[in-house]
């Protein structure tokens, strides 16, 4: 059985004619957690958005295979249905749309794609209430508008909640740990660990070693100037914490 979930080969990406990803390669298997670290501007967020299908980027060359099929021509929502989830670095506020409606719409879109029956609001409440406790959120937050007036921590927890709800096979967490206090970080890590199993994979984009104290990565990659320049284990993350990124260039 082929356990490879994601295979990125020789990916070159530009935005406004500026090259951001340069011959980027990455292979992710089921059951693995990959951490991607690297200095600001090294292309980490671009990588996550390209994977999710953001329309602003142009693929010059390369391939992205997800579960064995080339997804480069797929729309963002099709990629989502296939099982790719992106936890946004800056979750978007949607005024006027309640969280509950938004989550139900997302859940039902996926149900529909999987040829499963869509759930009505009452059934959905039952489903979502079970998940809420996993990220330590009160049911009250369902009636609030999507991310509107949420604190930084609430926004990030909302992202993890959506990941759990959609039960995605490949989740990319773009700096989900940034700006969190230690309690929120623990809640989120617990949520991630609870969610993770041998059929899924997670890519953590982070600047800090501290998240990796709670979520144990299979691999740690260092990204610089649009490509991965070094791969190691969690020991590498600790080394980076001590020395920064400069020494890698020597």
């Amino acid at each position, binding site marked *: 059985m082929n356990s490879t979930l994601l295979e990125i080969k020789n990916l070159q990406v530009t935005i406004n004619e500026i090259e951001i990803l340069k011959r980027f390669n990455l292979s992710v298997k089921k059951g693995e957690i990959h951490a991607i670290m690297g200095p600001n501007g090294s292309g980490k967020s671009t990588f996550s958005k*390209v994977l*999710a*299908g*953001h*329309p*602003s*980027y*142009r*693929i*010059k*060359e390369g391939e992205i295979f997800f579960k064995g099929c080339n997804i*480069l*021509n797929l*729309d*963002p*929502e099709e990629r*989502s*249905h296939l099982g790719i*989830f*992106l936890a*946004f670095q800056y*979750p*978007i506020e*949607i*005024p*006027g*749309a*309640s969280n509950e*409606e*938004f989550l139900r*719409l*997302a859940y039902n*879109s*996926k149900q529909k*794609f999987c040829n499963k029956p869509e759930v009505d609001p009452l059934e959905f409440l039952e489903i979502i209430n079970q998940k809420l406790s996993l990220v330590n959120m009160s049911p009250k937050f369902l009636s609030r*508008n999507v991310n509107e007036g949420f604190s930084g921590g609430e926004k990030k927890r909302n992202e993890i909640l*959506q990941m759990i709800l*959609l039960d995605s096979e490949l989740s990319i967490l773009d700096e989900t740990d940034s700006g969190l206090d230690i309690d929120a970080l623990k809640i989120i890590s617990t949520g991630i660990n609870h969610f993770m199993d041998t059929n899924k994979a997670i890519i953590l984009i982070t600047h800090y070693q501290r998240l990796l104290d709670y979520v144990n990565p299979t691999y740690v990659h260092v990204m610089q100037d649009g490509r991965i320049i070094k791969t190691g284990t969690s020991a590498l993350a600790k080394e980076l914490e001590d020395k920064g990124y400069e020494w890698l260039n020597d």
Partner: protein
Amino acid sequence: MVNQSKKVLNTNIANLVNQNYQYGFSTEIEKDIIQKGLSEKTIQLISRKKKETKFLLNFRLRAFKKWKNMAEPNWAYLKFPEINYQSIIYYSAPKQQKQSKDITEVDPELLETFEKLGISLNEQKRLSNVAIDAVFDSVSIATTFQEELKDYGVIFTSISKAIVDYSEMIEKYLGSVVPIGDNYFSALNSAVFTDGSFCYIPKNTVCPLDLSTYFRINDPNSGQFERTLIIADKNSRVNYLEGCTAPQYDTNQLHAAVVELVSLKNSTIKYSTVQNWYSGNKFGKGGIYNFVTKRGICINLNAKISWTQVETGSSITWKYPSCILMGDKTQGEFYSVALTNNYQQADTGTKMIHIGKKTRSRIISKGISAGKSKNSYRGLVNILTKALGSRNYSQCDSLLIGNVSNANTFPYISVQNSTSKIEHEASTSKIGEEQIFYFLQRGICVEKAIELMISGFCREIFTELPLEFAAEADKLLTLK
């Protein structure tokens, strides 16, 4: 080389609001039509055709005289080519058509037209809780439930018929809220108006049915000049609904209406409009010029008038449903959703004139602009010296879709005493590419995403609409 996604979000969003206009058909029918152009002769001809009294002919001629000396208002944030008032037909009616008492006398072609518009006048199929007056070009062709309403003393008929049958009330109230010389378009309307509805709710009566008028412009060259007058006597209450559609033509048609509401002591009039005139094509060609004067007066203690409008059609909208709060403790409300797309232009809002003590008004306006459209809120809150202890709350929100649409807010506030309170809130937001991408990433398609955002944005207004209209309005704002 591969573009990341086939869909380029931004252009796509704009296209989404381009749902086809489903009321764009026209009806082939034999017409009684008069020559183009406007003169005293035209007015005399219209008046004669309608067998009007001297009072009305004079009313019209006075208005015409005023109109000739007035100029088109140019303060609105609207741009359109000069209107040639001499190339408009001022009277067009389906032939052999008199106000038929019996629905079976109405031309089946016309009944079918209204059927197609979702308005059934047929006794078996008509809505059971709404009485409808159906106006086709210049005349009312049928009014349902008249007899049943009469049992309650409620008068609901075409204004042409009211002019003959209830001349006393017409003479007392016609032009009492919107004087003939009030503005350019009200003067024009007063001179040439052809039909519309008349409602009278007697004392101590809650109107047992919702009253509704459906306006249909059919002829490509005629203007529609409707006139509606609603009077709610002491301790009465009525819900009135207005709907409008027109065929799809390359030329522009003029619609200049006047609506007057009179609310007496302790009475309430709730007036709702879903305006869906043809808006022109996506290059801005064709569509209705909608210049409307709507005003209500709350004459005595505790009277209340509430305007709710959903404006989605017309190439140009110029409309400010207003309330004159004359009696003490009277209340005025204005709830509005205006959606513009392509090259549509809307300059709409309200005026709240506080005259009596402890008067209250509330304004909630939601503007949505997509495509290259312009959408402006223009409002006046005027609290006069003697309107002690009065209050106003205004909220004006704009939502922009795409990068080239335009939203403006022009609030005018004047408070002339120190015991009154005014609150004004305004916001502008944009449905941006990043928001759409967020939805897409969660597996939600663009159509659903925009639908959710628009309906969330308009929720406050939709709850004000009567049930029949809420469904229709929701549909109008649903994309695809």
